[in-house]
């Protein structure tokens, strides 16, 4: 069971990373509009016509 002495600090490290990522996301305004980000996956960004107009 002594493996737990190593595993738990590693788990804490992961939580720290998660918090870091979370803070980064807050700074990037990702939480200022919860409505939009949830829908963003529905839209196709790379339709053929679209690429043409980018040229």
């Amino acid at each position, binding site marked *: 069971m002594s493996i737990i002495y190593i595993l738990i600090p590693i788990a804490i490290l992961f939580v720290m990373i998660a918090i870091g990522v979370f803070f980064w996301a807050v*700074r990037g305004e990702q939480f200022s*509009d919860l409505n939009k980000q949830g*829908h963003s996956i529905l839209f196709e960004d790379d339709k053929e016509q679209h690429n043409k*107009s980018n040229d």
Partner: protein
Amino acid sequence: MSNNCFHCLESVPSGFSATVNIDGSEQPMCCIGCQTVAETIVSQGMTDYYKFRTVRAGKVQQLVPEQLAFITSYDNPDIQDEFISQTNDISEVLLTVEGITCAACAWLIEKQLLNIPAIKRVDVNTSTNRAMIQWDKERTPLSELIKSLMEIGYKAYPFQADIEASQKQLVAKAYIRRLGVAGLMTMQVMMFAFAMYFGMFSGMEENFEQYFRWISLILASPVILYSALPFLTNAINGLKAKQLNMDLPVSLAIFGAYIASSYATVMQVGEVYFESICMFTFLLLLGKYLEFRARLKASEFTANLQKLLPLTARTLDKDDQEHIIAAKKLKLNDRVLIKPGETIPADGVICSGTTTVDESMMTGEHLPVKKYIDHQVFAGTVNHDGVITIEINKIGQNTLLNQIIKLQHSALATRPKLVEITDKVAQWFVACLLVFASLTAIGWYQVDPAHAFWITIAVLVATCPCALSLAIPTALTCAVATLTRKGILIKQAHVLETLPQLTRVAFDKTGTLTQGRFSIDSVDLLVDSISKQQVLALAAQLESYSEHPIATAFNMYTPEQRHLYDINVHPGLGISGHDDNHHYAIGKSGWFDNSKCNAQATFYVDKQPVANFYFIDEVKDNTAPLIASLQAQGLTCHMLTGDASSAGQQIAQRLKLDSFKVGCLPQDKQSEVELWSKQNEIVAMVGDGVNDSPVFNSAHLSIAMDTGADISKNTADVVLLNSDLAAIEHLLIVSKKTRRIIKQNLALSLLYNGSILPLAALGLVAPWMAVIGMSTSSIIVICNSLRLLKL
């Protein structure tokens, strides 16, 4: 094929037929505007918008060249200073975009803008209706970006963030960060807490338990020292102001238990309560954040309103050459040219031309005021029909508009406030808690000194007012959500608590009790040769060319389909035109003769008076029932109007108001309301004009109409989005229901705290029992609050 426009879902007018091919099928369009927009959307490959939008798009209005010229003025560097910030080559601007309704709009706008190569980043926020754009100003001017939004049917203008709004954004972000830390960490702490709970039943190795305690301490520390810190600072601020607020018992429990648990960990004695205080912090922050967010949404909505003063002004130099400059660069004695329909940029005296000016945003009265040479005009008012040149005599802080705004700010500092129910409860709760905790400590010290400290801590944790602190924010959040759905925006937290205690309501007249626009009261025929219908039809046709506010009174009469030519608008007089046989004119009485009659308009055929018109500002349909119902509830109703005419008295008598005062300056309204509040009355003010904004801050509660001036909406605690007075009654119902729910919540949570207290004092409550009891009581309170959503 359906008869509704595919883009805006409005019905297609008969005779108009246009279709756009969207994803392989022809779809009908209702107007050229919608057609152009839909074609742009298709050609850019953005038809996903139609697939995923949840709210219909607004009808597209086509631009007139003047608007285009106005947009181009945003490229003036002097003007850009106000809303563009620059870092290296990248400029950043915040645009308020009208017509964003759902996530699909946000996607469409981002897609459209990212097509422009100069753009580096676009971020559309659908809850604030704003778009943040970072781009290279040198490659594409701002006006091009705004025009590109117009192509897909959105109107945009630069947003000037005020300090208050940006501070609120910072607070919102801080809340999210604290909430995130508390959430993530509480999960971990709970995990170890559960291990220790099981250890308590089935035994656990001594060194494991100690290890878990240390881990819990490490994980709980950020929650307590970062997430829960605002509670402590609030409690200390309260103490400094000699007030016991709800944050005090909260901080006592959180920080008391944290310190004791840390001591227990280090010294290897007693019990630890890390999971309780972490969960408590998380739940409480969540409740507070949701309440904050509901109000933030409301205040962001009103912050989008356009500023009162124009950004640009047209100055004339010595050779009468026009120059467009930033309005804030105007100097005293500058000569400024103002065209019809433009907003006057600074106070000044007319030095050439005559016109009528709409001062309704200043005075609340919609009848335009005639202005001749040497008359004073005020910044923020709208020039109606004449071209005038004014010489600036007051700028910046000295303009009448800014004087009113100053008055409003100074009133804010002395605004009357009611003691909030939370604070009342907190005061005796804290007192009881301290007394009980010390009794427990003293009692146990006599019996068993070794356990006295730990049992006192258990009492603190068990009585931790978690459900009690959630009782009010959750109820308020649900009530605010319900009201927002009904078009009632609540901007301040105190609104729902103040409402049930109201004793007086004061109304502004024009635009609040009345429609704020004119309708024809009576027509006096002066000759027999023409019928009333004919007069109205002819007058309606002439007035359809006029932009005078009185012209709208004729809208409901079908215009004559006669061919008129030589239509002329005579500033300050009226409008005239010819057909093949006769000369027609409608305008002020005594235009062509010297008759002294008090009609507000006269119709002339061949310069002979034919009919006199009398206008009235109609009372809104639902005003009378509202006043009656308010009076039935024991509220006294008053009218404070800036209008000095007899109309005020008539309306007050018709509506059976308890009292009325006419000809009020903004200061008069203020002193009237202040007098009432000195007599211990709780006063609400309902209004819509700029002249109402100072009094808004003198009243306990202020309610603005959506049709009102932007500044009054910014100041008010409540905005009625449909400008419907009946909403006030709904507001009262919801606030009373909210009060009832809050009382139930308080009773429920006190019941829990009261029943666990004796057990804790006897030393029978283990940490796991405290956690279960606390979460259950919180969930019961939250569920009770949710009932408000069903109203």
